């Protein structure tokens, strides 16, 4: 019997990464285009956007997805969000060198978002218009937010603790942190961690109703920013006990040093503007990781490109890093892959791990003109070389839930 929650006896390494984004159906395509400063934001074709205020999104091209077959399950009952998750999980497993199909006593922690809502919307529309109850069973199967988590467990026979975190846009940041905690606690030698989210009419209409969406591609930290661009996708990371990874000769991208999670208790949709609340999250993460602010070489920021969010975020960094912030690269991938909501944190954690492993700081696509309210080095144009010892991956969510992951080099 493993000891009860023997914290910090182990290190958690990231040994596999799978990505599905609007930039590409896999990790390497996404990374290559991300570093090149490209954007996946374009015309939305998943549904008719003509009645919406905006008509763009970072939509995934599903034609290139490699989806593992689920035993006995018609693929038509698997939601778009689950397909992203399955493709990302399959890539992460391959990347980590896990080929087998026997039962894995691993943990599985995902950020749960809209799950099968895009499919369920067709059912809801029919019922609201007086259509019959008897139709649409398949469209409702994945309404529960943990359905994609169940699908991954089913596809890869994962039998350990299975957790779905749903804290909106910080969901999968917390999922990665919690997965690392499970590994460090000795609850599982390996954890699959990540998040998935798919575009749907609800979120598209909702963010439009809040006037939080730009009609043009998002420009994080930029003076001209007018809002976010919605996106979709998935990221799954293999988080592994370092001794387990060493024993099988796996090479790590990075180590999860710790994470912080707090609530600003301020407003459902607006961040606490002084940055004091977000500062608490950053400091909690640094304490949990056992590093100081001077160890941090890069921040993968939340950077939604909304009018209020970016300044509050930068204010928090200013409070933590002081004058050093001017020389600290802070970039947001949301100008490239959009805001993928419950998948955003995992996608950004993956980008951060790749940045550490490859010593390249990814750029902020869309950023061109500095804003005094966002006094950061936002890494314009293209990725740049940079030796990164410790990096933060930062997320903020509806309801004031912020989370910060601390990743470092695995040695």
């Amino acid at each position, binding site marked *: 019997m493993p000891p009860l929650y023997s914290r910090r006896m182990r290190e958690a390494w990231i040994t596999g990464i799978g990505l599905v984004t609007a930039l590409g159906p896999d990790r390497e395509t996404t990374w290559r285009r991300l570093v090149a400063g490209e954007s996946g934001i374009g015309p939305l074709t998943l549904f008719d956007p003509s009645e919406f205020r905006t008509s763009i999104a970072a939509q995934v091209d599903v034609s290139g997805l490699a989806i593992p077959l689920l035993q006995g399950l018609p693929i038509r009952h698997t939601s778009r969000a689950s397909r992203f998750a399955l493709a990302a999980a399959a890539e992460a497993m391959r990347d980590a060198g896990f080929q087998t199909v026997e039962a894995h006593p691993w943990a599985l922690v995902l950020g749960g978002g809209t799950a099968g809502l895009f499919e369920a919307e067709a059912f809801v529309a029919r019922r609201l218009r007086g259509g019959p109850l008897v139709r649409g069973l398949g469209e409702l199967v994945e309404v529960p937010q943990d359905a994609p988590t169940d699908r991954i467990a089913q596809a890869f026979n994962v039998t350990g603790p299975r957790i779905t975190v749903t804290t909106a846009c910080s969901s999968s940041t917390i999922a990665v942190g919690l997965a690392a905690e499970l590994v460090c606690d000795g609850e599982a030698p390996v954890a699959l961690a990540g998040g998935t989210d798919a575009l749907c009419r609800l979120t598209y209409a909702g963010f439009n109703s809040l006037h939080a969406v730009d009609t043009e591609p998002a420009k994080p930290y930029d003076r001209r920013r007018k809002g976010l661009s919605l996106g979709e996708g998935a990221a799954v990371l293999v988080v592994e006990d370092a001794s387990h990874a060493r024993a099988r000769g796996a090479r790590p991208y990075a180590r999860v040093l710790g994470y912080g999670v707090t609530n600003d208790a301020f407003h459902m949709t607006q961040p606490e503007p002084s940055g004091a609340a977000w500062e*608490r999250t950053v400091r909690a993460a640094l304490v949990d990781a056992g590093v100081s602010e001077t160890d941090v070489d890069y921040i993968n920021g939340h950077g939604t490109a909304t009018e209020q969010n970016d300044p509050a975020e930068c204010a928090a960094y200013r409070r933590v890093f002081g004058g050093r912030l001017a020389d600290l690269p802070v970039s947001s991938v949301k100008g490239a892959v959009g805001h993928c909501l419950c998948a955003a944190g995992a996608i950004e954690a993956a980008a951060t791990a790749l940045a550490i492993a490859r010593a390249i700081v990814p750029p902020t696509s869309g950023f061109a003109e500095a804003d005094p309210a966002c006094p950061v080095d936002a890494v314009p144009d293209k990725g740049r070389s940079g030796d990164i010892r410790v990096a933060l991956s930062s997320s903020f969510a509806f309801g004031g839930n912020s989370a910060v992951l601390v990743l470092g080099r695995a040695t």
Partner: protein
Amino acid sequence: MPVAVCRDFSTANVLPPLVARRLDRPSRLLAVAAREALAAFGDQFPWERERVGITAGTWNAGTSALLEVLRTVFLASPDEAPPAQFPSTVANAPASQLGILEKLGGPNITFAEKQVGGLRAIAEAGRMLLARRADAVLACGADEADWLNAEGYLRLGALRTDGHPGMVLCEGAAALVLARDPGSQPLAALAGWASAATPAPPYKYPDGPSSVVQACTTAIARAGITPRDIDLVVSMANGIPALDELELTALAQVLGPYRPAAVGASERFGEGAAAGTLRALIAALAAGGATTPAWDPPPHLAGAGFPTATGRARTVLVAALAGGGSALALVFTAV
């Protein structure tokens, strides 16, 4: 629809009308339950509010707000989607609104795990405390009643109807306060927890009881006790015959021939994440000696020799199994 609705629920005398009006129903339910849980501490809140976290489990919070937004999108115009409703469509709205209302700045995490969510919130509250991410955590469950969820599970044949056994969905909320240093009179101790899974499609229970067995066995071991120390089992039965069979087989493997007292609870308030938290609340109250839950065991357990509780239970096992195959068990003990 077979849903156990909180018909007499009111926020009067708990929340100011203007505050209550801007909250969605699951947020109101949770706010009231949390106020009751926090009332035990009176005006002298014993912890810094920035060090108090919230964990919540939910199966369906946000559904009614979601339907309101979609009603506008589909029947009127996307341009008219109500911005005030949109934040309530996220499942973490009840926990987040609670954080705002009570000014609790610790970690605030919601778990979506169907029937298991309510117990998950308690287990992760325990982990949060051990990791010193908070000094106290409000561990909650909240669910709402809405036609979309009910229709979905009705179509799956999982709900109770005339002549068809099945579950009744739960609407409601429950909250427990867990603390590292709970003061001189804690109700009970969360002594152990564990979870495991047997993969199955999201809408089905697994074929075998292995995940329940593993979760219960590990939780009992982590609590530092043996199966024969269990005085009371709070049954996970929800009216679905397949779950009865799974539970019976699992308990036989965990307990062997030993038959502690058992109590059925879901018949009282239905099934869901909030129901899970309510069952944990019964377990904590029983372990703390505050009550003897003398409700009869469900028929499948009574028939197998599990008696009705008649005396003090100092060690209580409560477990849950979700569609999709995730299981979680908690052990509460007297302090």
